[in-house]
């Protein structure tokens, strides 16, 4: 079953802090060469992590639901710098 996450996220309300992503990959080479499992790309419920053809991990935080999954699941390398967005930015739940 192919599920398009973009269609789900489209229903949500966001105030994106353009140019200031609140999560960043500390050492991209660790994702590319060392990490075998790349759990973030499987477990992130907003599909923020995509494995590129060249083996690089791409992270786009615009659709982030701020749950913390990627940070917790990256327990082998602790390769994420994870902060909450600045006050007022990020996901704005209408219902929660």
């Amino acid at each position: 079953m192919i599920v398009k996450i973009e269609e789900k996220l489209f229903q949500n309300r966001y105030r994106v802090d353009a140019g200031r992503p609140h999560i960043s990959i500390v050492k991209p080479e660790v994702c590319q060469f060392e990490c075998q499992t790349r759990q973030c790309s499987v477990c992130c419920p907003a599909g923020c992590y995509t494995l590129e053809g060249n083996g690089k991990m791409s992270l786009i935080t615009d659709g982030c639901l701020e749950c913390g999954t990627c940070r917790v699941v990256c327990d082998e390398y602790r390769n994420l710098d994870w902060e909450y967005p600045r006050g007022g930015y990020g996901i704005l739940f209408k219902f929660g």
Partner: protein
Amino acid sequence: MSEKFDVIVVGAGPAGNAAAYTLAKAGLSVLQLERGEYAGSKNVQGAILYADALEKLIPNFRDDAPLERHIIEQRMWVLDDDSFVGTHYRSDGFNREPFNRYTIIRAQFDKWFSDKVRAAGAVVICETTVTGLLLDSGKRVVGVQVDREGGSIYADMVILADGVNSLLAKKAGFHPELEPRNVALAVKEIHFIPQEVLQERFNIGEEEGVVIELFGKITQGMMGTGFLYTNRESIAVGVGCMLSDFKEQQTTPYALLEQMKNHPSIKPLLAGGEMKEYTAHLIPEGGYKTIPKLCGDGWMIVGDSGMFVNAVHREGSNLAMTTGRLAAETVIDLLKQGQPLTAANLAAYRRKLDGSFVIKDMKKYQEMPEIFHSNRQFFTTYPELLNRSAHTLLHVDGVDKKTKEREIFSSFREQRSLFGLLGDAYKLWRAFR
């Protein structure tokens, strides 16, 4: 902001609101900081509100709180791939006031609660992220750092109600990073359908609600559950499993939810609905053994940040409100007695918790996470056996009932040896005793 407060509360969920409300009502100067646009805009829950914990704070909350429906029926379904065996408990007793449980929409409910906190006299500032705690040379928490200019704010006490991720407690070294096996990842959608259709579909009247708890093949072998709650004119449908299982099994959470929504027993309940929001949230389900250190010089932890969730009974927000209230009462008592807010004195908070249902319930189920982690048959084999037994028994095909019974018994024996069956019964007893 150079002002100093008696207490700073970080976060405006149920725990933070309960704490701030209690403190402000007692006349203390309280600053509550919330990173969302308004209280509730960052918060996610199923959501069921248990009246008792809120009643202890705001006895007449029913007068104006945004409540969706009171629950009159609880269904528990054990699902196989295309069937379910279930129990329903419905009672008109649940229609007698005061009602015990309600469905709520958190963005609306938390906003209402926050208005009560403001009315009680607390200063509530939204759109402000707390980025760190301020500690003095003696490692005493003396305030917080926020992401606004000149953002140091001081207080005698900081209450951390910053939710499951609790970055602040981690940065300060109060507790370590969460482990994937101690948190569940839940994803949820809200589907709007006309009120009359919803009521007819669930056989309920105006204001009456139904809860369906889902268990079995829908979690694809992972330790977890699904749920479906009726709101006034919408349905909340979601599924949550341990993050360690998502990780190990390489399952994508939204694909799991999509599959569950397409189960032949669930799909008709959602038919014609319009999905208006998709959410995700971590739930601290590690239980009693994962409760961190709860207080120290100048700080306390309440709610999800303290791992206060009873996963067996799907309770969390009531534990959050209760821990928030008890933390606040501890501070009020100490200040009244002129005692300093030191780790030793704040230990009274832990004693209050020990005497409450919060710790008693969490202690009761302390073995549960471990037992379910290492015994997947409860999520796969048994739901399957149960459903197939029902099918064998109810499918009339000329085979006599005694033979059918034997067939069912041997299917259990094939899947799980006699020792396995007895062992599982013992494990269940141990998990729930």
